[in-house]
């Protein structure tokens, strides 16, 4: 038992306790604030679901749109990213290396710059600009490298090369090899990448705030809007909606991903 032979560390313990309070107290505070009648009077004013109801009326639509957008983003990054990851894993040419570097740039460059670039280039196409597709495109550009990197490193496994070679010598064509052998073999990595993409897309604000229009609002955009213009109780209740809707979805997906990892993992 190596853990129990560790000497006591009072200093580290103190920091851990303080940091934990700093991290957890605001979450509890905002949950509480969303459920009381009057925030400045505190718990004495009684509990209510009134603010939650008001939020649902004003902003309920953003929840569905955010989840749909994240799901679409996952589909998009899988369709674009998985073949791309395969090609990058099998090609060690200089061009492939440069392309991989370029693809990762949107992660390093602040979202605000990417959003400005998209607006400057496509802002004039009104139908596109005013649809959710505009936000979706931004999200895919930003999340694609996460999918490609995750899946590409899975494609590089040595046993996979041998498997593919064996299938080829038995006469399987590329489509059969790709869908029958390669994709099932890297499936856990695709799931892990999808989870990452979903999480990033659901919480994305830096790009989305610039790209959204009054008719295309996502949950984080609605949050910012309610914080700026509504009572503190509404803002808190909306934050509570985020916790209540998004976190269970993320936990569910995490659980599913672990399950798949266990079943398909080698």
């Amino acid at each position, binding site marked *: 038992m190596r853990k129990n032979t560790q000497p006591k*560390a009072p200093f580290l313990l103190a920091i851990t306790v303080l940091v934990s309070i700093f991290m957890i107290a605001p979450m509890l505070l905002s949950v509480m604030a969303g459920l009381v009648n009057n925030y400045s009077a505190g718990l004495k004013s009684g509990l209510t679901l009134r603010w939650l109801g008001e939020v649902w009326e004003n902003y309920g639509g953003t929840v569905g749109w955010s989840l749909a957008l994240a799901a679409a983003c996952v589909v998009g990054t899988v369709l674009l990213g998985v073949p791309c990851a395969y090609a990058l894993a099998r090609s060690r040419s200089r061009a492939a290396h440069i392309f991989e570097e370029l693809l990762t740039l949107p992660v390093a460059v602040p979202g605000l710059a990417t959003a400005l670039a998209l607006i400057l280039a496509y802002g004039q196409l009104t139908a596109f600009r005013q649809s959710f597709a505009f936000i979706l495109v931004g999200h895919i550009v930003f999340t694609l490298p996460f999918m490609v990197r995750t899946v590409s490193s899975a494609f590089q496994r040595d046993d996979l090369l041998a498997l593919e070679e064996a299938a080829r010598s038995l006469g399987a064509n*590329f489509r059969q090899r790709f869908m029958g052998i390669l994709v099932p073999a890297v499936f856990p990595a695709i799931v892990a990448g999808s989870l990452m993409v979903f999480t990033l897309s659901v919480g994305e604000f830096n790009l989305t705030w610039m790209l959204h229009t009054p008719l295309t609002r996502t949950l984080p955009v609605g949050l910012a809007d309610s*914080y700026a213009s509504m009572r503190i109780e509404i803002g808190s209740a909306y934050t509570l909606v985020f916790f209540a809707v998004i976190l269970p979805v993320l936990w569910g997906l995490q659980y599913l991903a672990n399950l798949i990892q266990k079943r398909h993992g080698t």
Partner: protein
Amino acid sequence: MKPANAWNPRWRLLACVAPAAVFFVAFWLLPVVRLLTLPATKGWATYFAVLTDSRYLQSMVNTVALSVAVTLATLVLGAAVGIYLARHAFTGKRMLLSLLTLPLSFPGVIIGFFVILLGGRQGVVADIGDSLFGERITFAYGLLGLFLAYLYFSLPRAIATYAAAAEAMNVQLEEAARSLGASRLRVAHDVWMPELAPTTLACGAILFATSMGAFGTAFTLASKFEVIPITIYNEFTNYANFALAASLSIALGIVTWLVLFVARRFGANPVAR
């Protein structure tokens, strides 16, 4: 052997990359090239606005200083918590760790709102100050508020990274040092620091980059302390000064990218979370 299979492997790989490449070129590369050339239309001097105009320079200096301070504070606190959690077993540890890393999925605006709840006009600190000294203390919209907000979104990443790294640390080395009479501080400096150096470099670079570009948090706190993402946003939406917004975005992009690039030269990967 069949004469040169119609699908030469080289072409096949190209076909696999093509969809992603077309998408990336159309929706990132070309727009960004456009962004890069835009300031030129207002004269070459526009590119250097961040250096020549004292207001923008101040905003950039603010942002870099704040990001450096937050990164350093986060590394110290994150390392302490990560090492403690990795070394000590207690009930509810997994729960605590998952609560501490939960904010990784929060949008920045929520964290800004947390700081308003703590230090805003109706915040907890204002209430406490009111009942103790008869004065409502508010710090949410100034430098302290921004610092705490940035710290809040940086800590979960650092804690998760250090907890994982500390699990993998060599305990024997430390026991040897201690049995030879090294003090706690000495162990931290001579054993922990070299072992955690690669983690620190990688994590620090990502924390810095994230802080530089953090827009949502600063936006919610609509701060008196101006940071560059807010300056860009104001130039773009309030003054419709596109060329200048582009120029400032380029400056911000260069600083962030450069830090990540240098860190990667020393072996850190920005996309690995």
